[in-house]
């Protein structure tokens, strides 16, 4: 049996409880919550959690969801291989 846990962030294994603790410590800005708990910073870059966390933040603080800013969603939104970025045509390679 797994232990009863509900998750906000699957990549970083952040439980809803951990998020609530951070909010109760006074951190209500997503930029702070990301850095304290790690939500949104794992390999999926927030695709599963950056919507759901807002409901929990609204519950805890009464801040309206509409007033919660989006965090910066940076490229690449899917992971890209270093080799693909570095790959050049043989011709270009010879010129370099």
């Amino acid at each position: 049996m797994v232990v009863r846990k509900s998750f906000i962030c699957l990549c970083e294994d952040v439980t809803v409880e951990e998020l609530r603790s951070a909010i109760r410590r006074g951190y209500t800005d997503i930029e702070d919550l990301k850095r304290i708990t790690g939500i949104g910073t794992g390999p999926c870059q927030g695709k599963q959690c950056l919507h759901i966390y807002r409901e929990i933040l609204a519950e805890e603080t009464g801040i309206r969801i509409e007033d919660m800013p989006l965090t910066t969603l940076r490229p690449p939104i899917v992971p890209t291989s270093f080799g693909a970025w570095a790959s050049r045509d043989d011709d270009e390679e010879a010129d370099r």
Partner: protein
Amino acid sequence: MPLSGEPLDFTFNGRTVRGYKGDTIATALARDGVKSFSRSMKFHRPRGLYCGSGRCISCVMRVNGVPGVRTCGVPLERGMVVQTERGFPTTRFDLLSVFDSVFRRQFDYHSRFIRPTFMTPFYQYVVRHLASSSRVPDSSGAFPALERKSCEVLIIGRGISGSVAQARIQKAGVRSLIIADRQVGNVSAPPSTVFGFYESGEVGLQVGSGLQLVKARSILLATGREETGLSIVNGDIPGNMLPEAVHQLTSRGVSPGARAVLVGTNELRDRVRRQLEAVRSSIVAEVQDASSVVQVLGGRAVRGIEYSEGRTSKTVRCDLVIQLGPLVPAVELAQQAGCELRSSGSFWTVRVDAGGRTNVPGVYACGGVTGLIREDERISSGEAVALSMLRNRGGP
């Protein structure tokens, strides 16, 4: 319909498994009965095929010596060597899941392992190995050369509104057109995923294993809406799925589970029902209000769900929990492009004028990403914005 393609044998953790042409690695494994695809970072809980759209890491495995491969996004090939990553000694029986038992509510590892200081290197060693997944790739890979391209129109998304817009634009004779869509299995073209908007105005596209940087005179964001899950208790273990994962499995003739429970509600419910019916899964309960779920029951995989109904609590045996969370407009690329977003209820959407123009010159948006929900509205949006783009082309 079961897949009738040619059989493709591959190895999974050393044993031979049969899949078929048209499978993704994930669907082939699921057909074989594999449930634990991976283990989670801190607690080493089992995770299985969950989102089916490359937007989580629950199905990630090491493929042909390359770590971190989203198996739901890779077409199966004969001879592939597939291995699970985290888990000691194995992913199926992972001793490190003791962390799940020891840390019962949360594991904020930034507030732990501070004392005694002489243990610091040991603590760091443990956490680094616990948290990290797979080893460095076995060998250097070969990649197609990075390509730079330009075109007149780039359409991002081939959903309802994107397809309509594409048809309208092509009908008007525009040849220099690139359409990108990330879903595997779109029949007419291989998946090409837009991954970023850069300062230079270039848009990054991932096509197969190679990358392209595209400069387009006009860009249409038809990225639509994304499925989301629910943060219910134990909603992370194998057997929990989003509709896209159900779709991926059933379209390959794989049953996602014999006894399904639908939790929450969104527009995809009817499609999910139909797909489950087609593979003869039965829906044993529908819990529309996700907050009434007490917990999903199970250890290595889902085996039931407990929820409250009125003042009583019900426990239902099931092996599949389908999470119907809200569909959220996919605004990531719009944000990178510099588009203004506006709040629409509890969602951020792309702000557009009547002609589908965003505040960024040359960038348009249509369909679900602008906040439209009804199918007929999204269709006419695709049509209208395509016409607007053609009008603003500035001459032949």
